């Protein structure tokens, strides 16, 4: 009985400890941001691997999500004779929810897992300790550029996702199902608000960028330095990122759009 209690206590203390280490790491990363300005080369290289290489999956997914929204939206709206509002439905759901959330989920799968594996292997092969031996702060040199690259890339990728999705919805709605061309755009422009919808979506994706990059880097930095540990850390990155994104999305939506 006492043993059970002790093991429960150990689990609780362990997770609190990890939470504390995660926050210390975040402070360390943010503390290194000022050095980033002096060495933009590192940031560019990381933005390439995190952002540029994610463009293809983001735009292709965005196109298909937009096309599906066009089909499903038309099915529902045509029952009320309101096909003209298809543009509003597609754009609002993309800009407010699907753009930031699906981008963050794809980002966690595409870039976050790669970051964790990279950092975890660096730790397993003692490259991080090597840097420390040379009096180079590995957090500032290795983690901060990756974090900054993730935070910069996420809103841009989410914007691409939404833009391509709106065009995908246009292809299906106007091209395939015969919604009026002008109504699609004009209804959209009349109902979608720049500050209320578009800016709030960007804020969401910025938050997701911080959270996903942080989780990925922490899991890599905190991984058990074995091949099994790295593989487990990579799995944890994807799972934790997905849960954090979906949970935070609810909180952010409630705060932003809760009371009209």
């Amino acid at each position, binding site marked *: 009985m006492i043993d059970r209690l002790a093991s429960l206590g150990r689990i609780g203390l362990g997770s609190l400890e990890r939470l504390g280490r995660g926050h210390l790491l975040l402070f360390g990363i943010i503390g290194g941001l000022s050095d980033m300005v002096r060495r933009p080369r590192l940031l*560019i290289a990381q933005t390439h691997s995190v*952002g540029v290489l994610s463009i293809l999956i983001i735009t292709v997914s965005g196109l298909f999500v937009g096309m599906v929204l066009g089909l499903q939206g038309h099915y529902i709206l045509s029952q009320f004779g309101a096909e003209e509002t298809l543009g509003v439905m597609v754009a609002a759901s993309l800009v407010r929810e699907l753009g930031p959330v699906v981008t963050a989920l794809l980002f966690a799968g595409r870039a976050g897992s790669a970051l964790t594996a990279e950092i975890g292997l660096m730790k397993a092969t003692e490259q991080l300790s090597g840097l420390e031996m040379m009096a180079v702060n590995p957090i500032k040199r290795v983690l901060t550029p990756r974090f900054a690259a993730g935070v910069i890339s996420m809103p841009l990728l989410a914007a691409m996702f*939404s833009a*391509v999705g*709106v065009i995908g919805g246009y292809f299906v709605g106007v091209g395939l199902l015969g919604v009026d061309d002008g109504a699609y755009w004009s209804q959209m422009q009349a109902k*979608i*608000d720049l500050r209320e919808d578009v800016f709030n979506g960007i804020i969401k994706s910025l938050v997701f960028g911080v959270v996903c990059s942080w989780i990925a880097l922490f899991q890599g930095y905190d991984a058990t330095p074995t091949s099994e540990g790295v593989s487990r850390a990579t799995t944890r990155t994807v799972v934790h990122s997905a849960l954090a994104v979906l949970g935070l999305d609810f909180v952010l939506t409630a705060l932003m759009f809760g009371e009209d």
Partner: protein
Amino acid sequence: MSKMRTMEIMVGAFMATGFVALFFLAMQVSNLSTVTESNGYSIKARFDNIGGLKVRSAVTMAGVRIGRVTGIAFDDNTYEAVVTMLIDSERKSIPDDTFAKIYTAGLLGEQYIGLDPGGSEDYLGDGGSIPLTQSALVLEEIIGQVLFSKAEEGDVGE
């Protein structure tokens, strides 16, 4: 070095594409291109009942949007709704005997204010108010009236 250069170019292209997407969302998807709220003048109108009118609802004349509702207040003394409208500055000649009505777009659509111009030579300026108004049609009231008149017809018939 040249590898770094191609990487720089690709990152530059990535960021440019991202900003183009943001610009597309701002200009084509949202209402930024249709909003001209900064310049205009405001006029007021009093309604007995504004129904489902909201701030940012359209103000139209002959079906063309000429402004937006910017404020809805309640007058404690007269129990009326005071609606403030911002009219685009290009629309200077709204007669001061204009009739303001609240219409509904479609059967279940949004409500908006329609202005019917009067014949006066004097025009409304900033802070002017529209004296002639007609309230929103509330569906329940119409149904009530129809039922009432039907009942009366029935009485007469007997």
